[in-house]
């Protein structure tokens, strides 16, 4: 496999370069929207790590996203932490939560895993409402512009400034994209795929599948938390809607659309969904109907998602 490593690497560099170039090309609105899409694509990439590679379908990933969202948002809102420290708090929250949830939920598989993760996410969501005094409940909290500045050696980076925000989103996206490519092609990634394909056989080969799955849950949780933390810091809003079941379903849809177990599928799916909604909502209030029809057509003609099907049919080397 080593001989074909160049093409995937070149493709990923090209995608990052294209996103960088788009910073200069896009009109203001699409520039802002793409920053948001990149942050949410990170959420989808985190989801894809568990769903695509390990084959574990979680219906509760909104809790990992919102662990990052609230971990960083509350650290700034109540404790006045700096942006980097708050981002770190978001990651630690995601890691801690995913470790605990992983330990408990991985005792189940299949449909039970879906239900258990969904229930935990519901507990997390209702806890946010219950502790409304600190979390702002269903209304949420606003992080002021003055709280979203980074001081680096005398230079102030303002995360509310469009170009800085775009570049911060691109930076996070690039790091996570390269990390998922690295994981997918590492020995660890291959064990995960082996678990997906046949867990019993993987066990028989001497792998500790529980430990590997747990590591995957934590890695997935941390990536989703990074996305949530970035969402709070870049867009300034922390609210329980982002922890609701809808936000557990969305990354699943994005990944299914783009292609599960492809590194770039989450980005493709997120961009696609966002623009279908953005364009069609300008014409009709029944835009979710259009989204539904688009999803049905995709499942019919691209059963493995856009990139998954392209890989199956034409471009075998696509990671």
């Amino acid at each position, binding site marked *: 496999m080593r001989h074909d490593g160049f093409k995937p690497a070149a493709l990923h560099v090209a995608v990052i370069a294209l996103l960088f170039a788009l910073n200069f*090309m896009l009109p203001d*609105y699409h520039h802002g929207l793409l920053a948001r899409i990149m942050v949410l694509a990170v959420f989808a990439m985190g989801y894809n790590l568990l769903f695509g590679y390990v084959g574990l379908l979680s219906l509760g990933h909104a809790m990992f996203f919102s662990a990052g969202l609230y971990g960083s948002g509350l650290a700034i809102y109540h404790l006045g932490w700096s942006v980097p420290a708050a981002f770190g708090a978001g990651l630690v929250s995601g890691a801690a939560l995913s470790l605990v949830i992983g330990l408990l939920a991985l005792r189940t598989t299949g449909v039970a895993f879906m239900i258990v993760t969904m229930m935990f996410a519901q507990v997390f969501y209702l806890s946010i409402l219950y502790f*409304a005094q600190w979390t702002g409940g269903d209304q949420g909290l606003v992080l002021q*512009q003055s709280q979203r500045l980074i001081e680096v050696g005398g*230079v102030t980076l303002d995360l*509310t400034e469009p170009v800085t925000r775009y570049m911060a989103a691109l930076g996070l996206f690039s790091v996570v994209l390269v990390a998922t490519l690295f994981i997918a092609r590492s020995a660890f990634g291959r064990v995960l795929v082996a678990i997906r394909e046949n867990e019993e056989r993987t066990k028989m080969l001497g792998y500790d599948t529980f430990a590997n799955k747990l590591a995957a849950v934590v890695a997935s949780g941390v990536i989703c938390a990074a996305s949530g933390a970035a969402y709070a810091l870049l867009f300034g*809003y922390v609210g329980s809607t982002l922890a609701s079941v809808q936000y557990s379903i969305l990354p699943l849809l994005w990944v299914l659309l783009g292609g599960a177990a492809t590194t770039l599928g989450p980005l493709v799916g997120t961009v696609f969904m966002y623009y279908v909604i953005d364009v069609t909502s300008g014409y009709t209030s029944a*835009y979710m109907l259009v989204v539904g029809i688009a999803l049905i057509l995709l499942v019919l003609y691209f059963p493995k998602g856009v990139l998954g099907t392209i890989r199956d049919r034409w471009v075998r080397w696509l990671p």
Partner: protein
Amino acid sequence: MSSFIRKSITRRTALKGFGAAAGLVAGPGFVRYSQAQSSEPIRIGFQAHRTGIGASYGRWYERTTNAAVKAINAAGGINGRQVEIIVEDDGTDPGRGAEVVGKFANQHKVDVAFGTLFSHVVIGSAPAAGENKLPYYVVSEGHHVASTKLNRYVFQPGITDVKSQIQAMAPWIASNAGKKVTQIFPDFAFGYDHRDYLPPALKAQGADVIAQIAIPPTESSFTKYFPQIPADTDVIYHVMVGPAVLTFVKELGEFYGSNRPQLFGFIDSLEAVDVNSPGLEFLEGSHFWEGSPRYAQPDDSDAQKAYRAAVGIDDNGASVDDPKDISTAAHMFGCWETLYVIKKAMEDSGYQGRDDAAKLVEATEALTEFAEGPEHPQGPKIFNGKIHQCFGIQNISKLEGGRLNVVHKTSIEDGMYEPEGDYTTQPL
């Protein structure tokens, strides 16, 4: 990072260079609008809840908005320019709400954004308004604007906030309904406003909240909560909202039978719902807060009559086209009044285009009162520019004979409270 990029190649110059490339991807969403010229219409972005949980309110907000714009344009527009409404649906979702405000500012190039109702959408969208320096006039009744936790570009000049409304109810409840009050409210933010603001307001009037019963938002049956209501309760103060309200009222009726305490509620529970719906009989004789009365009243002003005719609601507060289509009359007047506040502030500041956004913000902050009349049919208002919030009269209506009759109007002062901050100290 940004300064380096800006020095070497700015987005604007790059935009010109890449014009041809951008042309290739030009779809309907990529159209760039030229800067508004003085002859062009004033563009107001209406952030509508066309879908999602707020849709029934959103429909009536849109109808009121269109009626107000028609009236404003018929009278010559704003600064001699016609007003154009650009509607975007936010799906009653705070994430989408922020995107919609960004779209208003950067794609539609509107002059102001307006009309948001649900609190979480207002709070979610507020950062986008502040960052884009887009004046954002909401019609939400939430306390979020007045709490001064949002930013200098967010205003609520056309409807009073829930803290003020609750406080204004206390004197009437204490002197007419009873001194011992039990509150039943949904266990989320809307209920918490009532939980937190009513007890001190009642205390000041010599009455007490003797029990507070929070009901989880997922609950669909309420009977098990009713035994928690103390036996010596004089008044049950209820603010249940959503589809569960019919079950709530029915079960409360079964629990008490004919021998019940006084009932006082906020009409928010029953906005867009016919008060004569089966199951609501138990509410006969009880009292409700209303922002603006749903039913036509004998002492309605000419302005109120003209407003109702313009929006198209009949004497029962239903659509003139469909008597079953009940309006959200207690709140939607806020869209009408807010548009006239925008008009007044634009005229005061000699507003020409987006470059005058800061002037428009200052002109809005400089407003102090709105007289009752065709522009403010609900009643007179006092505006506090430091907290960007208006204060006005409230109505208490009694449900009798299948209609809501106003039995008391509060004074503006009943709903006034000490400001919690000052937006005018924030930079523009």
